[in-house]
Every structure is written in structure tokens, then in C-alpha cells.
């Protein structure tokens, strides 16, 4: 793990440049350009709010804020994985030609989505006063769940990027897993909506702990319990250690398979 940190620190300028390149290329040819980073979550929120709040009459006060408070971090997570899984295979030709530390690519994929996440907070910040929803002081707690989520996303990306080198099915399976994961995680609903006898299964989902802090701080204006904070950071660190140890094991041979 220490080798990963020193590798990332040594290549920090390259990682930053690759993340910015990723964003620039993502939005370059579209007429609205970077505005899509702001519009995407808003449109997604409108659709989900229309379905769950209006059509299905879910009784939650200020449903759009309730939803956005975890939809934005979820998008950070799912997009990080979607970009991360392709990050080594997509740069395969490059890796066969010049030596670059392999860990740079999944990290840049996650970082570009972290930058995107900060931009996607803008519509939320505009929406809240419009809906006369208060800004709670607990916003200052957000770096903690963000750290847990980013570490977890990084670990998953390391694992997926490597797995995709050896089995190209991984990228396809990931899409299915992510959409299933979206519905079994408390994003469009909260854990209270789940019948008590099923809650045990929902508690096995690390996303529950990783997203919990966001909704508490933004929507409820509460700080999570110490256990909950530790659970979120613990999931993040554990995910990173597991994902990276697999990545590290195969990083010297992957150049023969990309």
C-alpha cells in the first residue's frame, strides 16, 4: 500500500493531466460542453422524482433533495467504475510502447469523476434555496463520506481494470451489476421503506454505509454515529486494499494481454 501511495504521489501531475484530458474529451464535441456535467444529474433527478414522488406517491418531504443527496455520490461511484473498468484496456496500445506506472490509469479515471462530482453539486446548491430547503451546517462533514466512497471506488476500479484485461466480459457484466446495485441500495428510497425482515440483507451492502453520511448531512442535517462513520471509512479502506492487492499481483504481466 505504501508503494501505491508513493507511485501516485510521484505521478501526481500525470494523473491530474489525464483526468482533465478525460473530462475535456468527454465534453469537447457536444454543443453544451461542460454544462452536461450539471444537466445530467438534474435530468436524472427529474425523471426519478416524477416516477417515485408523483406517480407512485412516495411520501417523502422534499423528495428531490432527498434523492439528489445520494444520487450525486452514487453517480460518482458508478461512473468511476464505468471509466475505471476500461482504463487499462483502453490504454493498452500505450502501455505496450512506453513504461508508465499502471496504477495511474484507474486513478485518473476515478479522479476525473471526482472533479465531475464537484461540478454536479452546483445544481443541488442552486436547487436548495429555490425549494426553500435549508443548508445544514453538517455539510462540513461531507469530506468524510466522500473519502470513504472515493477509496472504495478506487479499489473497485483497480480490480475491474485488471479483471477486464483477462476477461473482456467484465465491462458488460458491470453494467448489469451497477443497475441492480442502484436498486438494492437506499438511493431512491431509505432503509425504513424496507420490510424489517429483509433489512438484514440490505445491511450486507457496503453502499448503505458509504452513502449514509451524504444523506444524513445534506438532507437530515444530522451527523452520523461514530460507528457509521467508521463503517464508511472502513469499507473504503478495505475495498482499496483488496482491489489494489489483486491489481498489484498482475500488473507486470498485463502488458502481454491487453
Amino acid at each position, binding site marked *: 500500500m505504501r508503494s501505491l501511495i508513493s507511485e501516485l504521489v510521484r505521478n501526481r*501531475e*500525470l494523473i491530474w*493531466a*489525464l483526468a482533465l*484530458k478525460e473530462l*475535456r*474529451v468527454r465534453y*469537447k464535441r457536444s454543443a453544451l460542453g461542460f454544462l452536461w456535467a450539471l444537466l445530467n444529474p438534474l435530468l436524472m433527478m427529474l425523471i426519478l422524482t416524477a416516477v417515485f414522488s408523483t406517480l407512485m406517491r412516495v411520501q417523502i418531504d422534499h423528495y428531490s433533495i432527498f434523492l439528489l443527496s445520494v444520487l450525486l455520490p452514487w453517480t460518482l461511484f458508478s461512473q468511476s467504475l464505468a471509466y475505471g473498468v476500461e482504463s487499462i484496456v483502453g490504454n493498452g*496500445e*500505450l*502501455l*505496450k*510502447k*512506453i*513504461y*508508465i506506472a499502471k496504477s495511474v490509469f484507474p486513478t485518473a479515471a476515478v479522479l476525473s469523476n471526482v472533479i465531475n462530482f464537484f461540478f454536479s453539486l452546483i445544481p443541488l446548491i442552486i436547487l436548495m434555496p429555490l425549494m426553500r430547503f435549508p443548508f445544514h451546517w453538517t455539510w462540513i462533514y461531507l469530506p468524510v463520506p466522500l473519502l470513504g466512497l472515493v477509496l472504495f471506488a478506487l479499489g473497485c476500479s483497480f480490480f475491474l481494470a485488471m479483471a477486464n484485461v483477462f*476477461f*473482456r*466480459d467484465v465491462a458488460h457484466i458491470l453494467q448489469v451489476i451497477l443497475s441492480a446495485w442502484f436498486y438494492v441500495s437506499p438511493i431512491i428510497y431509505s432503509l425504513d421503506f424496507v420490510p424489517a425482515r429483509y433489512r438484514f440483507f440490505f445491511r450486507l451492502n457496503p453502499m448503505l454505509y458509504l452513502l449514509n453520511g451524504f444523506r444524513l448531512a445534506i438532507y437530515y442535517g444530522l451527523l452520523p454515529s461514530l460507528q457509521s462513520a467508521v463503517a464508511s471509512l472502513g469499507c473504503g479502506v478495505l475495498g482499496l486494499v483488496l482491489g489494489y492487492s489483486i491489481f498489484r499481483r498482475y500488473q*507486470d504481466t498485463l*502488458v*502481454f*494481454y491487453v
Partner: protein
Amino acid sequence: MSRGRATSRPARLRFENVVQRFRIIRERPDTIREVFARVFRHSSHYHDFEALKGVSFEIFDGEMVGIVGRNGSGKSTTLKIIAGVYRPTSGAVKVSGKVAALIELGAGFHPDLTGRENIVLNGLMIGLSKREIRAREERILDFAELGEFIDSPIKQYSSGMILRLGFSIAMEVDPDILLVDEILAVGDAAFQQKCLARIDEFRRRKTIVYVSHSAASVRELCTRALLLHEGTLVADGSPDLVLAEYSELLQHAVVS
């Protein structure tokens, strides 16, 4: 393969019994379904191929070493090991100092970014810091002769322009070891002269490893040559000597 060189200075580059083995899989299972199919059929569809079978040599500062050999003799594999792209299966490789490769010029350029943006990205990839790149940007632009194209996306460049830009960036790394693969095909005659002058100046101070099929250029440029044949080092010495052995080997191959 020691050449009995009476020297106390340490080698800039040392290969010790380096073996590079590739697993050649006739049809690599890319998907999980194929893996299952393979497991159930209990068949193994691969064989191991040794691109280098225990190669040892040392290269010192001030040398320009030409590596010659037929296709598939292990020349490119050797360069890729020096560059760090491949990690050898066994044996020891010691490289001291910075390595720059004039092998895949323009590898890592992104077609949607401008020349200027690519200088930064490519410079970072080959190990320069942002500050170093900024300090050298003018020199790179000067040398590459791109004119006003420098702020256009690279996909609008001609292949010659991309090679010129790649060459200019690689030379600015100020490496201790320069890897060159058939460099002399970069750009038009005037630019080739410029590149050769640059390499010539570099050669006096540092180390160059040069892979080529052209015996004439090895004889003209190199101070020493290595001959690789089917993954083993069969000759190491003055270019004239090694090239004579190479042409003998080629004749042999034509006859058989």
C-alpha cells in the same frame, strides 16, 4: 560476453542472463465462456516462446551500440526491456539513469488535443515534470517546426508532423540512455539531417542503443554492435566484425 574492457566505471546498462518468455496462446480465451469451454475440454492451447534465451551484455557511457539480427531475433524485446515496458521472466537488468525511447514516436498523443496540450501530456508520460516541460516548450516547438498548427488538434496533423513533434519531445527528456529504432525515417531530408545532428551531439556525451536492419547506418554511426540470433547473443564487438558475421548468417539463412 565480457569484452575484457579494462574499466573501473560502472556500466550504464547491464543485462545478466536475461530470459523473456511469452506465452503464445493459439486463441487466447478473451471471454469467460471460452475459459469454461477450455476447462471442460481439458486442453491447453498454448506453448511458451522464449524471445530472449539468457542474454548478457554491458553498455558504458559514450558508446553507441547497434543491435542487429533478423526479424524475431529479439531486438525489439531487448529495447522494450530496457525501456521498462516488459519485465523479464528471469535474469537481472540494471539500468542507471533516465531512458528515453525514439521508438514509438507519438505514442500517447491524443488526437483531440492540440499540439501544445499533447506536449504537456506526452512530456508527463515520459517522465518530465510540468515545470520542466514549460521551460522546454519553446525549444520543442522550434525544433518540431509546426508553425501555427501547434494550437490545432493533432488529428489534423500529417504523419510527418506527428513524428517531428514526438522526436522533439523525446530529445528534451535529456536522457542518459537513448533507445533508437530505425529513427532515420523521420520527416523529410532536411529534418533528418537535423535529427542526425542532434543524435550525433548526444552520442558524444551519453549512451545510445540503436536497432536497425541497415548495416550501412550501423557501420557509420555505432562504436560497437551486438548480433542477436533466435534469442541468443552470438556476436559482440566492433561493427565491422559483427556485421561480417551477420551477413554470413543471412547468407546461410537464404541457402537453407
